[in-house]
């Protein structure tokens, strides 16, 4: 089993059009490095020197990783990671 990573439309150019890819690692940073080895260019769209890019939201099993350690958040096989662009909420 691996970690499933859901990729938003705009970044599927890096995954050959795939909506989900798989990777491994002990932390989110490790996972992104692992993905980079197969999907070159993806990592720099997600992360910059300061950490997660401002308009990139990453969820580990539906929870925003910024509140659970950011790039240091521990991940494990069976987890689902979702990458989304930051958009305005609706209702309002």
């Amino acid at each position, binding site marked *: 089993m691996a970690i499933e990573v859901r990729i938003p439309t705009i970044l599927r150019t890096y995954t050959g059009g795939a909506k989900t890819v798989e990777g491994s690692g002990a932390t989110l940073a490790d996972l992104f490095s692992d993905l980079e080895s197969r999907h070159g260019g993806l990592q720099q*769209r997600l992360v910059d020197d300061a950490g997660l890019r401002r308009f990139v939201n990453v969820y580990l099993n539906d929870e925003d990783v910024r*509140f659970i350690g950011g790039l240091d958040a521990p991940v494990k096989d069976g987890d689902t990671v979702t990458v989304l662009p930051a958009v305005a909420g609706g209702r309002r």
Partner: protein
Amino acid sequence: MRYDSLLGSMGHTPLVGLPALSPGPGVRLWAKLEERNPTGSVKDRPALFMIDQAEKDGLLSPGATILEPTSGNTGIALAMIARLRGYKMICVMPENTSAERRQLLEIYGASIISSPAAGGSNEAVRVARQLAADNPDWVMLYQYGNEANIRAHYETTGPELLADLPEITHFVAGLGTSGTIMGVGRYLRERVPGVQIVAAEPRYGDLVYGLRNMDEGFVPELYDESVLTSRISVSSPDALRRTRELLDSEGIFAGISSGCALHAALVVAARAQAAREPAEIALVIADGGWKYLSTGAYSGTLAEAEARLEGQLWA
């Protein structure tokens, strides 16, 4: 209760227990019924505060035109108050929002300018900004960056909640402009040590996110990450399923964003239950289900309703 006028009746909404959905006696859920506001949503609070503030600041004079990017509830609330106070109201609204919202806006005399479905509320904000630049005499209250939006919840929703539930441990609300969660969150954090502030964020299908450039995303100016303790992403199917549960288990006919908040509340409730920690969890029912009937969210099987909701903005 007696009030001088409709606007005077804003707020003081009931907080009702959700005994059937609560995991057990030590972990309880409470719903703040914001559909009991003058136009039927939590947005009456910020709408009134934003208009009052603009009047105080001298931005609005009789006959003025208010412009606002809104997918519905804020526009409906603003349109009602604008009509009472003699202002014109123009809403910029994504075309993939429900028919009822458009009808209500028209009933209150607002004009609607549609923005493209792809890109959702972001696109409405972009179109409204352009219109504001082209029409300098129009007043854009701009709920995403207007401090009066937060203040409405800091001064009314927060105090009401704490008065009704002094033992509160968690507050859960949907995340859009972030006004509710920032205002209530700040109020509670100043008064309740260790209180958890949990944002429930709608997660739509690919259409809504569209081909957004990751470098040009949108974070509301009001959003302050330090107020939150957790942010939970809720898919459309989960929000829909929970909306049905509110109806079936508790008799509450709520809009779909309330199902979103309930889902996040049940996530934190399950964690508290697993950790054997007592929890008193309050969540916001932002509006009733009436405006979403035409989406088909409440009829047929869940799978049918999900298919009908695909690509629509439900929060």
